[in-house]
């Protein structure tokens, strides 16, 4: 792990989607940083904006109806201020990205090898050399029969193999950051474990930082160094894996922990969180978790909660300064 050498820093990142009746605030004031060679996880339930953050970094939001505010510092440059031309040089070359469903993410009409080669060719590598590099990448991602598989079409591969292709494709140009947007959600558990192992090994080998987007806390505990917990477009708590799992402070994080399946029956039924995520069309002040929080006071609904530091690595966004008591 890099000695606190910062690679990416988001500063008050906001993403609004233009919708019929105004703006939908999908991401609000998200700030965090990722260090070189670190695996950083963003965890939260569906629709909490974690994917939006990931896509906003490279301006890859699919609908082109978004407004991105705030700063995205990468290697001394603010990516949010870059032109499309300049961003093209960052994508793939500096920051790679893999997605949830590797079948949709690969073009069905080209062989997988061709698609990996396409990226390598952008670095003005001769064709033959690029093809050798493709085979080398297939070996790197532990593809069985690498020489043959480069000629396979996406539909001729299993889900795990396709995700390996995606990883190979995105690491082929040696980026320093890999954004992985729920890379194992579409895969079964054994394949998931293999892919996670692969990502960790590649990180160790190439010192590539990984930003892992997931809704799976189990996965986080297994792979991540640091974690940000998101709720309704905001980071509510951030810390090392040990901070978050051993001493969760924010009421939402605590409830999430209680919603995790345990190994023993003694702990009784799983708890769920009542209510649902609010629709965020207008920029209302106040804590976004207030309507589901057992400790919410009047102040929570009218003022933005402050960020409290527990330790240099651990902070959370809540009015309650010591965090809330157990069993809320």
């Amino acid at each position, binding site marked *: 792990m890099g000695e606190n050498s910062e690679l990416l820093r988001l500063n008050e990142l906001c993403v609004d989607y233009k919708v019929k009746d105004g703006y939908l605030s999908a991401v609000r004031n998200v700030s965090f940083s990722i260090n070189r060679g670190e695996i950083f996880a963003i965890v939260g339930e569906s629709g909490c904006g974690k994917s939006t953050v990931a*896509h906003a970094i*490279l301006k*890859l939001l*699919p609908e082109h109806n978004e407004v991105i505010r705030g700063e995205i510092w990468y290697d001394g440059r603010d990516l949010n201020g870059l032109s*499309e031309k300049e961003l*093209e*040089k*960052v*994508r*793939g*070359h500096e920051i*790679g*990205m893999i*997605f949830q*469903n590797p079948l*949709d*993410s*690969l*073009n*069905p*009409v080209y062989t997988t090898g061709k*698609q990996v080669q*396409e*990226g390598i060719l*952008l670095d003005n590598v001769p064709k033959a050399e690029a093809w050798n590099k493709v085979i080398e990448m297939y070996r790197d991602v532990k593809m069985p029969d690498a020489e043959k598989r480069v000629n396979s*079409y996406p*539909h*001729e591969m299993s889900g795990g193999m396709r995700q390996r292709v*995606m990883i190979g*494709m*995105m690491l082929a*140009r040696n980026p320093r950051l890999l954004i992985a947007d729920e890379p194992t959600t579409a895969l079964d558990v054994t394949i998931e474990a293999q892919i996670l192992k692969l990502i960790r090994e590649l990180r160790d080998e190439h010192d590539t930082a990984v930003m892992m987007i997931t809704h799976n806390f189990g996965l986080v505990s297994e792979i991540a160094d640091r974690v940000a917990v998101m709720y309704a477009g905001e980071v509510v708590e951030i810390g090392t894996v040990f901070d978050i799992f051993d001493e969760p402070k924010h009421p939402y994080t605590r409830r999430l922990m209680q919603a995790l399946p345990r190994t023993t029956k003694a702990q009784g039924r799983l708890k769920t969180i009542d209510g649902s995520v609010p629709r965020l069309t207008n920029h209302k002040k106040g804590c976004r978790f207030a309507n589901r929080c057992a400790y919410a006071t009047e102040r929570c609904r009218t003022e933005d909660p402050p960020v409290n530091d527990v330790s240099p690595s651990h902070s959370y966004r809540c009015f309650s300064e010591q965090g809330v008591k157990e069993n809320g």
Partner: protein
Amino acid sequence: MKDYVIKKLLLGVALIFCVSFLVFSMIYMMPGDPASIMAGQLSSRENLEAIRHEYGFDRPFLVQYFDWIRKILFERDFGISYKYRLPVWGLIKTRIPISLKLTVATLIIENLVAVPLGLICAYKKDSLIDRLAVGTSLVLTAVPSFWLAAILMLVFAVNLKLVPVAGFESWRNYILPIVTGVVSGLASTIRLTKSEAMDALREKYVITAYAKGLTKRGVLVKHVLRNSLIIIAVNLFLQLPWLISGYIIIENVFGIPGMGNLMVNSIVEQDFNVIQAIILIITTLTVVCNILSDIVLGILDPRIRIAVTGGDR
């Protein structure tokens, strides 16, 4: 891929046979007797019988059918035109290239104009150029082609004297008919391309292509256009037979002696052998175009080959 092509070819041959049988029995069952048309209305009963016997109309249906097929296959003999008293093949032979020249040129020009336009419309959806292209082409398509043909003829041939009014001797005769054909097909191809490209633009692999670092141009050409081409190419082949029938009117307006022209005349004259031959040729062409489009589809979309033949890696 080889299995796939062979399978498609066999199916095509079987289909042509079925159609030939239907065409033959349709004409056989139709009211009106070729013998009486040839003999004239005031002919005697004996004379009629003699003609029937001479041309073999008194034989059983199936014998007549297989005789017809045998002659077409081995002697390229489609029978005699009752009207012109000439071999049908001789009549059609000179007209096929004229019609094909017209339709193929129309198709190529139409797609060369419509595909790039459709792509631009998809990429710059709701922009001025999108609205202009879609709106204009729609209006032009709604205009009946015989009217458009007449107007074009009036403006460019009669008033401006840029091209000849009618005839088929020089390439300049083909300009107005082709323009008429292109205009009437433009809107549907633009719309098809636009909707295909818009679907492709929404695909996740387009985001992957951007994430890889490809330029906008690279993504548009290598991923969006390439994947839209699958349907566009299929459409191109399937349009061809339709165009030939669509040219019946245009050929008549411009006095071009193509297949459509001959077909209309033959129907009016109840010239059965000619009608049979033309229907058979157009259906064969349709089947051939279908096979071609299937093969092109197989080439352009690797998923299809697997689906049809169970894979031939």
